[in-house]
């Protein structure tokens, strides 16, 4: 695994020795073929936490999360038709540069500052979250894990810029794919001899884990077909159309054709890929029907309770849990026998018996979580992120554990490198070159770009190192994202689709929208995910209202 890390750095640096100007550094000289763009887009989106938590989510909640991605192919088509030719022909380096072409400087500055404030902290979180999980499960030192990931990424991103990010993304996606497929195939060898693949699918399905599509229209249900198609399309439009970490991937395309194909192939393969990752989680769930799972998947919290006055009580719960699982295994085999016989009444009866056992196990687990809370009121009682990594370290042979850990580190590095690359580009192109030093040489901007990558990298590492001591800050990062994402999307939607709106209306609408979002955050109890919708709609509506009242041309 360490060999792989070293190889990524050396490969990234070796392949990018020709990076001698700003265009090469930020847009890879606009020479990138579509298949590299596709892999790079996928690697950027696939953070380590995606691979750690997505299978766990299927284990806990079933496969319904796949509906979250249903809007992605639609967003890819819309962006291919509108954003790609505009960005390409206007020859922009960043998405925010387009805002000046379309509106004025103040809109561009607002967009880039909102992006920098949100993505800057997110880069730290992208390093911190997987480092925390790996350190808990593998006993690695958290600070050291953060430093290894952070310094590795800074090294090749600084030296090679976008070319290095794209080249290493190819390597990282290969490792991620091989790692995930290996862990998938191993599950079938681990299932009991009398349980076939179809049996495993029936067990997962009957226990509610293969709920991939739900056509019911229920606003309180986070993942349905409708929320995926409508909400998902808006979210993906925002992420792929306005977030520089993604926009930079397809700005590197050698032509509109290459950039479009990069996005559209992503639209073809992303949904099946998420389906497979979730299916792996559902199969891990089936495996743990025949091997009693840990009562709680986070070993640190479990050890804490076992070292406390609640130790005996917890161990008793573990015994109960094991007994229920052994009884459940008998019931599952009876259910599979009923499915083979084909009697609907018998199938229903046996399925209900299995579900009753599952309910019993859930009650025992809830008691265990209560004990964890009693031991440490600040304990994180959500162990979803630890499920998949526990399966990996418990069941996979040593060589494959290394491969999957390399895949997880790859995912962390691929997202972080794209973020640092985008942060540096926006800082240099939209702030430094536009407002601080307009007429310097190309080599000067190249140096500043590299320095900016290093500084953003250090910033991300420092945030990640302190995140463990500022627990609430992690949630604050997610909230901060929602505080600004809706407004950015609103500005871009107005720019793309409301051609009569001028720069002043857009800018002041965005400022007021941001105040509305802040009001919601400070004075209401609206869940923060809704801030995206509120911010976006506020910009659009306010821009339409303000446009006739304000002069169209900005005086900047």
């Amino acid at each position, binding site marked *: 695994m360490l060999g792989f890390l070293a190889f990524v750095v050396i490969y990234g640096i070796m392949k990018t020795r020709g990076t001698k100007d700003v265009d090469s550094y930020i847009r890879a000289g606009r020479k990138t073929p579509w298949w590299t763009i596709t892999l790079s887009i996928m690697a950027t989106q696939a953070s380590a936490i995606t691979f750690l938590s997505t299978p766990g989510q299927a284990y806990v909640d079933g496969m319904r999360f796949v509906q979250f991605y249903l809007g992605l*192919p639609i967003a*890819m088509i819309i962006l291919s*038709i509108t954003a790609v030719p505009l960005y390409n022909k206007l020859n922009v380096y960043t998405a925010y540069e387009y805002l000046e072409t379309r509106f004025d400087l103040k809109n561009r500055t607002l967009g880039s500052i909102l992006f920098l404030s949100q993505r800057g902290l997110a880069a730290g979180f992208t390093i911190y979250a997987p480092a925390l999980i790996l350190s808990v499960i593998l006993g690695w030192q958290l600070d050291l894990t953060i430093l290894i990931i952070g310094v590795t990424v800074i090294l090749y991103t600084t030296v090679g810029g976008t070319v290095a990010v794209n080249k290493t993304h190819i390597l990282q996606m290969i490792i991620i794919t091989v790692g995930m497929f290996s862990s998938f195939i191993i599950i079938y060898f681990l299932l009991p001899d009398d349980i076939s693949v179809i049996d495993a699918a029936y067990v997962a399905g009957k226990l509610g884990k293969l709920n991939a599509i*739900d056509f019911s229209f229920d606003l309180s249900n986070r993942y349905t077909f409708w929320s995926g198609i409508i909400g998902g399309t808006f979210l993906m439009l925002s992420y792929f159309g306005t977030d520089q970490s993604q926009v930079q991937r397809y700005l590197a395309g050698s032509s*509109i054709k290459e950039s*479009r*194909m990069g996005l559209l192939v992503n639209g073809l393969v992303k949904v099946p890929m998420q389906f497979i990752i979730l299916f792996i989680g559902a199969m891990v769930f089936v495996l743990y029907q025949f091997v009693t799972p840990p009562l709680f998947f986070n070993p640190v919290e479990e050890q804490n309770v076992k070292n406390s006055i609640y130790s005996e009580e917890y161990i008793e719960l573990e015994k109960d849990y094991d007994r229920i699982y052994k009884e459940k295994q008998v019931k599952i085999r009876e259910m599979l026998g009923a499915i083979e016989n084909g009697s609907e009444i018998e199938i229903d009866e046996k399925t209900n018996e299995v579900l009753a056992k599952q309910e019993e196990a859930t009650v025992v687990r809830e008691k265990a979580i209560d004990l964890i809370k009693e031991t440490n009121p600040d304990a994180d009682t959500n162990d979803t992120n630890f499920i998949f990594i526990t399966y990996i370290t418990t069941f996979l042979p040593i060589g494959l554990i290394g491969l999957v850990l390399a895949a997880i580190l790859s995912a962390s590095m691929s997202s972080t490198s794209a973020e640092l690359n985008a942060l540096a580009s926006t800082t240099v192109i939209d702030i430094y070159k536009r407002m601080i030093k307009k007429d310097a040489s190309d080599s000067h901007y190249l140096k500043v770009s590299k320095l900016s990558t290093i500084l953003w990298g250090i910033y991300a590492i420092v945030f990640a190192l302190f995140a463990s001591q500022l627990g609430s800050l992690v949630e604050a990062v997610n909230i901060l994202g929602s505080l600004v994402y809706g407004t950015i999307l609103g500005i871009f939607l107005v720019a793309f689709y409301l051609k009569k709106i001028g720069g002043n209306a857009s800018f002041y609408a965005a400022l007021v929208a941001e105040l509305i979002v802040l009001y919601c955050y400070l004075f209401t109890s609206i869940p923060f995910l809704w801030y995206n919708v509120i911010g976006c709609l506020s910009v659009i509506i306010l821009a339409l209202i303000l446009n006739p009242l304000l002069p169209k041309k900005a005086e900047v």
Partner: protein
Amino acid sequence: MQSKEKEIIEADESAPPILGSWNKVYALVFGNLIFLILMFYLFTKVFE
């Protein structure tokens, strides 16, 4: 600005590497999405 952007979009006539026209590629991506949704629905129902 408005007409300039329209011109930019309309001026892009470079053909995609497959299927001959971009509209056909968009239809492929959209059709694939519909197909996946149907497959996922069947998958949900068969093993439910």
